[in-house]
């Protein structure tokens, strides 16, 4: 049975519908990541689950019980705020200890737990500082500390690592994942970091303008996005989209006219798409220098060398952006045409409504 | 234990009036079972406090009040009458009993008396070319002297009081009572609009240019201070000014208030405070007894002398001795003969406002005397 379930959840601020009917099941111990564009309602949804926002319509169930009216602590959740919400008048120590003080734990236990959290978060030397004297990342870590000293059934994290550098961020990521394993608590985690989403999630929920676009495991979303939005949102750099028109679709193969790039035939069972406008998608990392089942020639406008790989930006004849990602640092120069190839199996197809066609 | 009843007594001032402590003890000895519980309240708040206590239904037994308020208390059934025998009345100076009389009976026991006389600054008179030893005797002289002083010295001739304070009416009443005028008669008719009062207002108007700058800003103490400082040559004030003038080392004189054309003799305003006995304290009898006890001849005299007040009674030989010792007392006693009381109105504040307004409108030139007088007389009707 699912531990947390959202049923037709809605939220309006005055007239504006921000959350437009969300249904979601979260199993106990699951690590769920919410992703979605800025302003799509992630924080709002999290705050509703926490019990900080009133529910406009629908139900929130935790452990089979409708909790719409319960205060946060009775829902057994802990939350890290996007804005940190540190108590400016307390030291870091007391900020972290706050939930334990509330529970009236003995000082020895408080101390032990706070020290442990501080160690994990590399805040030992800052325990006696006030939030006002901390850097942005330090503040964020204090906020995390305050959540982890409690051991709630459900953790809610609102972009908890957004102010950390890559090294600390990946350390913290590992820490959080180990925490997750150790405690077995359910975690709901908002992030806009692809790596966090992909590596930490058991299940990613992609939100778009207050609605769920797709729910699935990271690789499901990566490999089989349900729609254009998810395809474009998951994966970085973004998937290349090229518009085309279906010449024919006989139930096994669809033949697509992709303008000046020629024709593409893909194995698809749908016949409905025949004659309609479609979009094909290819991830930049699925392109290879040289040739493949399909080959095209592009002229990189920009070449970004990242060391680990190289990203090229080109324009297709029809004007679309076309990115390529190649391992390491191959010899590519801006303005010199290159041949890139890709394989049929790596091509995504979306119908005129943006739904994936497999 | 024995039941001792308290007689609460509000004594205005900053301390218990001199001698009262002993008188209380003596009186208590004569009246076993009663004890006087005095409370001293500063002058500024005394009247309000007494009134509030009475209005709230917890009156004091005995209190100092301005005699002018007696009518209001009486009309509202808050105080009991304290009739005087003819003998008692006769002991007092002329008109003193009148200050506490209304509807034919007395409503309080006079306890303090104040009269005014004209002070002048001899040095300024001399400087202006006047005879320093000759004070003005008539309004005409007063105005002429004032003019001469104003024109010939740095000082102003006359200290005019016209601030929005009760004393402005008092000072105007000096003019009224030195010209045989009145505000209200015994039958309760407003007699303000008379040739005598009109003459007073006109004289006031005439002397204004020879008074200090902005008389509407000054009340009596302030004008007195200006006089003491040599800023004005003549003022009308109580005996207290004499002591201050001595202290300041001035060259001064005091004389009867100058008289108007219709005057029959020296006059002044007679202000008294009285001890009022409040209804409902349960010890009204004893309060009356106490009031009369502490204001009897000699005791009253002692208290007056201690405070520098005009005596209520022409007690002899004390009065002669006083004048012999301090000749400046003479004019303060002279004026009593043709003086007049503060007019008794039900709404005393109303009266005061109307009179002040009248004086100010004339002093500031906003209204002509006749016009101001008519308006005031009309408005007074509602406060009788």
């Amino acid at each position, binding site marked *: 049975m699912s531990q947390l379930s959202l049923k037709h959840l809605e939220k309006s601020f005055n007239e504006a519908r921000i959350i437009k009917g969300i249904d979601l099941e979260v199993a106990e111990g699951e690590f769920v990541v919410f992703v979605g564009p800025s302003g799509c309602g992630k924080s709002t949804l999290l705050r509703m689950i926490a019990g900080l926002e*009133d529910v406009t319509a629908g139900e929130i169930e935790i452990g089979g019980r409708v909790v719409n009216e*319960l*205060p946060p602590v009775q829902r057994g959740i802990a939350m890290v705020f996007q804005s940190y919400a540190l108590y400016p008048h307390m030291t870091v120590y007391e900020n972290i200890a706050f939930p334990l003080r509330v529970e009236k734990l003995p000082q020895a236990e408080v101390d032990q737990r706070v020290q442990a959290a501080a160690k994990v978060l590399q805040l030992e030397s800052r325990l006696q500082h006030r939030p006002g004297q901390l850097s942005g990342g330090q503040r964020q870590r204090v906020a995390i500390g305050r959540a982890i000293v409690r051991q709630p059934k459900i953790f809610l994290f609102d972009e908890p690592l957004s102010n950390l550098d890559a090294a600390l961020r990946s350390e913290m990521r590992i820490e959080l994942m180990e925490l997750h394993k150790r405690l077995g608590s359910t975690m709901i985690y908002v992030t806009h970091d692809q790596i966090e989403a992909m590596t930490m999630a058991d299940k990613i929920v992609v939100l778009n303008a207050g609605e769920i676009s797709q729910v699935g495991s990271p690789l499901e979303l990566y490999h089989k996005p349900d729609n254009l939005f998810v395809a474009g949102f998951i994966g970085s750099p973004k998937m290349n989209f090229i518009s085309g028109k279906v010449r024919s679709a006989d139930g096994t193969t669809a033949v697509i006219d992709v303008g000046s790039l020629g024709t593409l035939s893909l194995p698809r069972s749908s016949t409905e798409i025949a004659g309609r406008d479609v979009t094909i998608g290819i991830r930049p990392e699925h392109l290879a220098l040289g040739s493949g089942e399909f080959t095209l020639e592009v002229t990189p406008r920009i070449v970004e060398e990242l060391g680990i790989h190289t990203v090229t930006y080109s324009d297709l004849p029809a004007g679309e952006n076309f990115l390529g990602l190649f391992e390491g640092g191959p010899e590519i120069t801006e303005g010199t045409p290159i041949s890139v190839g890709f394989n049929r199996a790596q091509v995504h197809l979306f119908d005129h409504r943006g739904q994936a066609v497999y | 234990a024995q039941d001792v009843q308290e007689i609460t007594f509000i004594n205005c001032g900053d301390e218990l009036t001199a001698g009262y402590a002993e008188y209380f003890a003596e009186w208590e000895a004569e009246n076993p079972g009663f004890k006087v519980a005095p409370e001293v309240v500063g002058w500024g708040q005394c009247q309000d406090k007494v009134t509030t206590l009475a*209005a709230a239904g917890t009156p004091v037994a005995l209190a100092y009040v301005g005699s002018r308020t007696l009518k209001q208390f009486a009309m509202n059934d*808050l105080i009991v009458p304290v009739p005087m025998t003819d003998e008692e009345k006769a002991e007092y100076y002329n008109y003193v009993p009148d200050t506490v009389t209304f509807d034919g009976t007395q409503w309080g026991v006079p306890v303090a008396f104040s009269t005014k006389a004209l002070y002048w600054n001899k040095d300024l008179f001399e400087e202006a070319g006047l005879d320093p030893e000759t004070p003005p005797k008539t309004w005409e002289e007063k105005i002429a002297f004032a003019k001469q002083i104003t024109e010939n010295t740095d000082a102003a001739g006359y200290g005019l009081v016209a*601030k*929005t304070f009760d004393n402005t009416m008092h000072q105007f009443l000096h003019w009224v009572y030195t010209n045989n005028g009145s505000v209200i008669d015994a039958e309760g008719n407003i007699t303000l609009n008379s040739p005598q009062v009109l003459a007073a207002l006109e004289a006031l108007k005439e002397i204004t240019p020879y008074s*200090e700058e902005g*008389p509407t800003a000054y009340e009596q103490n302030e004008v007195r201070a200006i006089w003491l400082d040599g800023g004005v040559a003549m003022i009308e004030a109580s005996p207290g000014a004499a002591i201050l003038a001595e202290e300041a080392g001035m060259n001064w004189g005091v004389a009867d208030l100058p008289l108007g054309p219709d005057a029959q003799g020296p006059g002044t305003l007679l202000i008294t405070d009285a001890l009022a006995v409040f209804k409902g304290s349960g010890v009204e009898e004893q309060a009356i007894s106490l009031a009369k006890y502490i204001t009897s001849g000699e005791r009253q005299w002692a208290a007056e002398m201690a405070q520098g007040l005009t005596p209520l009674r022409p007690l002899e030989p004390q009065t002669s001795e006083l004048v012999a010792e301090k000749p400046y007392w003479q004019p303060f006693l002279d004026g009593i003969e043709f003086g007049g009381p503060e007019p008794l109105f039900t709404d005393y504040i109303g009266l005061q406002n109307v009179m002040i307004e009248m004086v100010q409108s004339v002093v500031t030139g906003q209204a002509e005397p006749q016009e101001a007088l008519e308006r005031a007389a009309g408005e007074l009707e509602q406060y009788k």
Partner: protein
Amino acid sequence: MTSTRNATLFAIALLAPAVLYILTIVAYPLVDTIILSFTNASLRPDHDFIGWANYERIFGAGNFTEVIIRTFVWTFFSVSMKMVIGMFGAVLLNAAIPGQAVFRILTMPPWIVPMAIGIFMWGWMYNGQFGMISGLLQNFGIISKPWPILAYGDSAFWATIVTDVWIGVPMVTIYFLAAMQSIPRDLHEAAWADGAGRFYRFRRITLPLMVPAIITMSLLSLIATFNSFDIIWILTQGGPSGQTTTMIIDTYKTAIGSRKYGEGAARAVVISLFVTAFCIVYFRAVRRLSQGEAK
């Protein structure tokens, strides 16, 4: 937050002491007063109900409109000057320069000194013969003869306002100072980095962010000023020729001084209604203004 019912219960619990206290100590006498306003209560222990007679009399009195207008003008200038000077003071005292701790304390005395004493001191200042203002002006040769400020309607009117402002300024200043201190520093830094000078920052950032504080203070000042009695009473008693007579002075003179409690109560009720109406209008105006500023 959720569980609105709980929240309301908690709020009620928090408010209970205040409500109970005010109910017993103030509301009860208040109701008494309102009842009194329909009676002819005076010094006499008993009284009768006389309906609206008191109210009719108040509005029937000849100079009532004049007094109302004067009261509004007086109040308006006093409150605005308090706000302006208070803001001026707060800005000065907020500047990071040495000595502020002392200056802040030196701001307080008018507030601490018993009001009557402060007013007496102003009375001294305004005295034409011996006071500081006239005296200094004469010493510096600006005027040639004494200037008794309280003698003339106009100058007395302004003098009473100045004294009222003086008494009110410390509280306004300190409150504004506290409000100013709570504006996040980075907002100023951001504006500064964009080239906004002190004055510009004050106008576009400090001032709008202090709107709640300004509303609060002006509302409280409004009420206090409207009911300000001692100052005028001690300095001029409403004179000369009634030119500083405000509603409260008028009320006092014609009703409380004369101990007509019924009429006095009616006047108090009328004044309160006026203040209330004024506050509401004011409140709306300020809110609209502050929203306008942000657009």
